[in-house]
């Protein structure tokens, strides 16, 4: 295959656009896994759930999926609060989070996926948006709107989360939980409450990211699994609990995947995130921006 400059530039653009979306998918894991030490394997299940919620509303009423997901994000927030309550009472409080907590989230992932299969079947679902079929062209370079719009909202969301964590009292409390829970307790703050809200925030971002996913590509219940490796790869690559790291890691992964699809074929793309994850774990477990 001849490698032209346009092909390379297109691969980079597509990778960056995809990477922005990956950042939105992974930012929740950076909060729950990176900061709160809650290994939420079920994160991708909530992304897919977000996709289906956006799909249902879009299918019935024709509203824009991304707007829908932002409006309905409080639902996901509430779901996250409930889930953390159960997790805390059954596992964290008893000191059983390492094995049984993991199995719990795995079960939740599985139940969500199977329930979606039972309700919606294994058909791929799509949404119709005003910009879905539009592509801007600048010379040889394509900017498909179905990637550009999620990219812009994704990056806004990730930057928003970062600003929220560093510039608000509650956000700083979350960062403090990540560092020293005992100290927080001595300050008169209840770390469990802080973790509950922060975990809920992470689930809310997953729900919103789900709407980006279904704008970008058709969705069926089982594709959530492909994102498990991806979200943790981004989180570890960027450095645990660093939101900027997550953004950079996601962009790196997006470009790596885009190049793999372009030059080796799209069927190889799912292997990239795992390769990056293993390489990071083997050579630099603290990630690019790890403390």
């Amino acid at each position, binding site marked *: 295959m001849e490698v032209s400059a346009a092909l390379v530039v297109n691969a980079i653009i597509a990778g960056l656009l995809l990477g922005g979306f990956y950042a939105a998918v992974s930012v929740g894991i950076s909060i729950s896994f990176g900061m709160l030490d809650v290994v939420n394997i079920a994160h991708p299940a909530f992304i897919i759930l977000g996709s289906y919620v956006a799909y249902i509303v879009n299918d019935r009423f024709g509203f824009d999926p991304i707007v829908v997901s932002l409006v309905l994000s409080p639902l996901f927030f509430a779901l996250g609060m409930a889930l953390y309550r159960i997790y805390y009472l059954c596992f964290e409080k008893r000191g059983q989070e390492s*094995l*049984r907590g*993991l*199995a719990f989230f795995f079960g939740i992932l599985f139940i969500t996926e*199977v*329930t979606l299969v039972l309700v919606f079947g294994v058909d791929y679902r799509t949404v119709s948006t005003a910009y879905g079929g539009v592509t801007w062209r600048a010379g040889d370079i394509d900017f498909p709107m179905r990637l550009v719009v999620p990219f812009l909202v994704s990056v806004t969301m990730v930057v928003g989360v970062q600003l929220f964590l560093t510039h608000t009292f509650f956000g700083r409390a979350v960062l403090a939980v990540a560092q020293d829970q005992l100290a927080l307790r001595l300050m008169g703050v209840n770390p469990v409450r802080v973790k509950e809200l922060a975990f809920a925030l992470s689930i809310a971002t997953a729900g919103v990211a789900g709407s980006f996913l279904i704008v970008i590509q058709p969705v069926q219940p089982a594709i959530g699994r492909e994102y498990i490796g991806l979200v943790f790869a981004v989180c570890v690559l960027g450095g645990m609990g660093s939101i900027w790291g997550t953004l950079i890691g996601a962009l790196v992964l997006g470009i790596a995947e885009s190049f793999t699809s372009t030059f080796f074929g799209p069927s190889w793309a*799912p292997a990239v995130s795992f390769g990056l*994850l293993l390489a990071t*774990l083997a050579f630099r*477990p603290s990630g690019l921006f790890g403390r």
Partner: protein
Amino acid sequence: MRPMSNRVFAVVAFAVAIAFAAVSQLIPNEYFFTAAYTVLQFVILATAWNILGGYTGYVNFGSAAFFAIGAYSTVALYNAFKAPLPVMIVCGTLVAGLAGLGLGYLTLRLRGVFFAIASLALAVVLYTFVVNWDYVGGARGAYVLQPREVPFGLPRYIHLLYIVMVLQAAVSLIVARAIEKSTLGRGLAAIRDDELAAECSGVPTLRLKIIAATVSGALMGMAGTTFPYYLSYIEPTSAFGLSYSVNSIAMPLIGGMMSWIGPLIGAILLGSVQQLVQVMFSLGAWNLLIVGVLLVLFVTLAPNGIMGWVEAWRRRRGR
């Protein structure tokens, strides 16, 4: 009562397995063998998972990957020179063991959760690899035909596969029990209870964990080696089915993770229930939902599983 020595247990287990296999040959219903094969598959997977999960406290989400390694090494050997079944079983077991060794070597030195995530991702990557590997059929799948002639005068090939599976299950249980009762098992238990303390008391934690990951992976691979013959046709989606990963976690958790008997009970119970649901309602997806719900219920409400109840009951009676 003194616990049985490993040798006695091995003899007893094999005797029971052979007796069981022989008696069940009298069952006229062909379906029994097909169903029992699946249940036995889960006995092996659950027992293997428990060596790393229950004894050591490291969660492996990628049982399906190891299972598929066993299955696809059989396909590769079948395509290469129609190797005899014992060769396939040994090769698949070894290759899966090597995969366990590699994954363990790369990730077990880190926090336990990284091993769990890497094992999950391993399934995705191997799946991608197999889908793109035309020699073993790629995404289309491959045919692995059962030999026309069935050895030992058995009526059908499934009877042979069933006997192989019974023996493999016996081997898995013997290995698991031997590990449990050995110094290795005590080292693993020390890691599970407090890895730092174990390390400080001179337990070579990394080496023990890697041994456990290797043995566990090898046994899971062994369970997959006869699978292509069982179906006569194999494709990546069935070999990498998430149900293997979920079941091999759910069964030990439901049965009880502290000893070799828990996964056995969990696998027989949960495996049979799934077969029954399959036969009575022919609803595959409901099966998976049942397993998922039971997993979550047990892990939240009865963290020590069925054997935990038995222990509690015994203690109450003993007092």
